[in-house]
């Protein structure tokens, strides 16, 4: 019954940690910027974040980047715990939807998300005039007390679906790209509909390097990670 299975592939071998996706997401989704004091208090707020892990010690130290955003779980821990259905599974799009206006801010979903990709608006977002003009009219600006998260740019999906619908055709592969995918210089992020057998994501999976984040928790994420390649130079 679901029409789409929106899927993201993250090629860790290509991710350079450049933060282009992070800023693109802020721009597309009206994600507020946490001030210095807020960040110090551990309230940095980015729908997509690039986790950096260190491995080894100097001089054989390596940094690994891991972009983490909402995994759009098939069996999402955040969904059943919400008392108001603000966190909700869209059967149609196979996505986890956060209905901001329905959220009362119990923050249960945030606790239960093992990926910690749900961010709470501890403060009302501020946009010094005329910065509010940059806001994307397709996305609700969330007020204080509301939980928010990556949506795979549902507004872009909906816009493409509405256009395709009105023109009486299916959505083409590549027609919808979340802002992060669009920005990513090294093509580390690949997005598409896995139910469309011709789509790039469908053709790329299964992949010999693929794994899912925290797969043992049974959350059935819609995000595939491709392991970073290891080559031993000069051995």
């Amino acid at each position: 019954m679901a029409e789409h299975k929106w899927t993201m592939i993250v090629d860790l071998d290509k991710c350079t940690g450049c933060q282009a996706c992070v800023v693109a997401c802020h721009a597309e989704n009206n994600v507020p910027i946490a001030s210095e004091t807020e960040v110090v208090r551990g309230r940095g707020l980015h729908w997509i974040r690039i986790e950096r892990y260190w491995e080894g010690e100097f001089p054989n130290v390596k940094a690994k980047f891991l972009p983490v955003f909402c995994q759009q779980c098939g069996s999402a821990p955040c969904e059943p715990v919400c008392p108001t259905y603000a966190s909700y599974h869209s059967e149609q799009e196979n996505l986890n939807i956060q209905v901001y206006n329905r959220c009362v801010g119990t923050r249960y979903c945030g606790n239960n998300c093992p990926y910690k990709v749900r961010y709470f608006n501890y403060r009302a977002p501020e946009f010094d005039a005329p910065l509010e003009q940059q806001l994307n009219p397709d996305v609700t600006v969330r007020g204080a007390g509301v939980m928010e998260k990556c949506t795979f740019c549902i507004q872009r999906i909906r816009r493409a679906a509405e256009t395709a619908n009105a023109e009486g055709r299916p959505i083409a592969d590549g027609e919808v790209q979340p802002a992060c995918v669009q920005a990513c210089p090294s093509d580390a992020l690949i997005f598409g509909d896995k139910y469309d057998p011709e789509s790039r994501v469908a053709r790329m999976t299964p992949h010999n390097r693929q794994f899912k984040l925290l797969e043992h928790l049974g959350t059935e994420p819609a995000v595939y990670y491709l392991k970073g390649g290891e080559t031993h130079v000069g051995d």
Partner: protein
Amino acid sequence: MTQITRRNFLKVSAAGTATAILTGCGGERWVELVPYVVAPEEQLAGVPTYFASTCRQCPAGCGILVKIMNGRAVKIEGNPEHPVNRGRLCARGQAGLQLLYNPDRVPGAVEQSERGSRRYTPIAWNEAINRLYEGLNEAGSRVAIWLGTTTSGHLVDLFTLFADAIGAQPPVRYDLYAGYNGYNVLETASEGLLGTAALPAYDLANADVIFSFGADYLGTWLNATGYGVGFGQFRAQPYGKRGVFVQFEPRMSNSGASADRWVPVRPGDEALVAQALVRLIADEGVGPAERVEAARAAAADVDLEAAAASCHLTVAELAALARTFAEAQRPVALPGAALAGRDNALAAVAAVQTLNLIAGTIGQPGGLLPAQALGDAGLRPAVTSSYGDAQALVARMQAGEIDVLLVHGANPVYEMPPESGIVEALANVQTVVSFNPLVDETAVYADLILPDRVYLEGWGYEVVTPALGGLPVVSSQQPVVGPLHDVRATGDVLLTVARGLAGAAQALPWEDEVAFLRERITALPVGAFGGEGPDLQWARFQQFGGWWPAQAPQAELPDVEVGGVAPVAAPQYQGDEGEFPYHLHLFMNPLLGDGRGASMPWLQGSPDPMTTISWQTWVELNPVTADELGIQTGDVVRVTSPFGTVEAPAYVYPAIRPDTIALPLGQGHTDSGRYARDRGANPVRLLGGEPGDNGANLMWSNVRVKIERTGEQKSLARFETTVEEAADAHPPI
């Protein structure tokens, strides 16, 4: 599409509809509807329209598409057709909206009766232009023009014509991008190697081995987005195997983090290592015969043990790296910013380019690409000035030889080391005019601020050559929204002023800058998008975001050969080793860049890729060094060089040499708007004022420093965990 004139375009974008954009969940608001007086064609409320333009957040010149909804610019995206960035866009490019909508933009022409007072009085544009005219008229040829690397190409051309016409020296085009990355050094090196003074371009997409000597090409070096695209293809196994990337640098940069092998080379020894690689290829005879031959011709006498030791490697390991390079199909070597920031910069860059010569890939896929001819349009890539040129201008200002200084796109007071005497020099200039959209550190010393349109409001072109795939590109810049404030295009101001100046009137005959642009662009041959006749060509230029040929022209390769052994002198360090035991390493992160990003909250608030710190300046040091000095993350430390002092909290960074201290550039603004002001420290203060290598460059990478605790603490605004035990926890990958 054919009839887009500037006037009729501005009419289109001047009106906008108001929409409820306040917090959606905070409470509902009922709004008044303000419809258009004249509805623009093809513009519907709620339906986006896209305008192609060029990003001017850094010198690279990426093509952008700006999404306009309801009369507002709401998103900047990469232009998929554009050969520079192929539809991708970096963090700074995305944040361009926050320059456009910056709350601290100068809303119109202002004067400052007392310099440094920060009290600005608005004046009418006519009066402002009159004052500029009077100043220039009196000054005659005692005029200096200081441009930045992000000043649009057409303005550089106009200013150059103008300077020429009034008999002044050509504009100085210098800012921290140019100084830090040593653009002038790279251009000079390219001239020596390829015959054209232009920034080098490397075809990473088709390379299979990258040896980068401190080039942060995925972060800020030259064209980070374009190289990011190239890197993605490089990793995607174009020749059936995954590309191998080795990075030599004292502190792991954003690019170093993606390397397969990160080699912590001692600052100053990069050229030595490059020479050692050549020596090893020659000695071991690895790789194809012609490479070995070329290596033998170029191999200098190198202390291999010392070279390996300065990399924390054994000679055998270094030899293995040499083999990797020599045996690759299309290896490429990149001379990074640190090489160009020393007294032996030109020789060091040449030593790295020697590796490319040995590889034999110059002008080939996967190699160093030469600049391309652009036809007879009189268009050529803008050349950067060296730090020496900038310093010479400062000296002339100090000597009272300059009456009027015009500053556009640069911020010398912030970007020049205080030792250069820039602030004192400005005092000796009668009239300082800033064209910058924000009151930056330099504008504080200006008498007049005549804010230019920011790049999303203004016209222009940018000659970017070569871009990915070796295409010559002229990128277009057009207003995507009507000007937000009462600002005037600097090109128009200049043309207006020139009309009254003897000599300049003939040299600059155009009615306005658009006329100039049209003339230049329509002189180009027909490009990839066709367009017969000047009107159509001009329209296509705007519509597709620029001009480039459908296929890369067959370049005439200069006859390049290994010219024998080129000696590289050992670097001389500034500061006594006893007193200043540590090397200073400065870096740009992909967010703040050279400091321009500091005025944009998206860039301020996004985490630095390596440390995840935002909003602040920090001092990186190795855990071993930190232990020795008893410094912990969050301790405020004082870093002192022979030239200056900077205080910032320490960050213990595992991927930096124990003998090196690193600081990020970009913070420490005293002005430049509310987001930048009084935040962090400007490490440029640690640098000396004297140019290095015969006046070629800013010497930033051979400075020695000492470090001590101040006893204070400051919480770092880092996004990563602040829990120590997390380091021992099992990472998910």
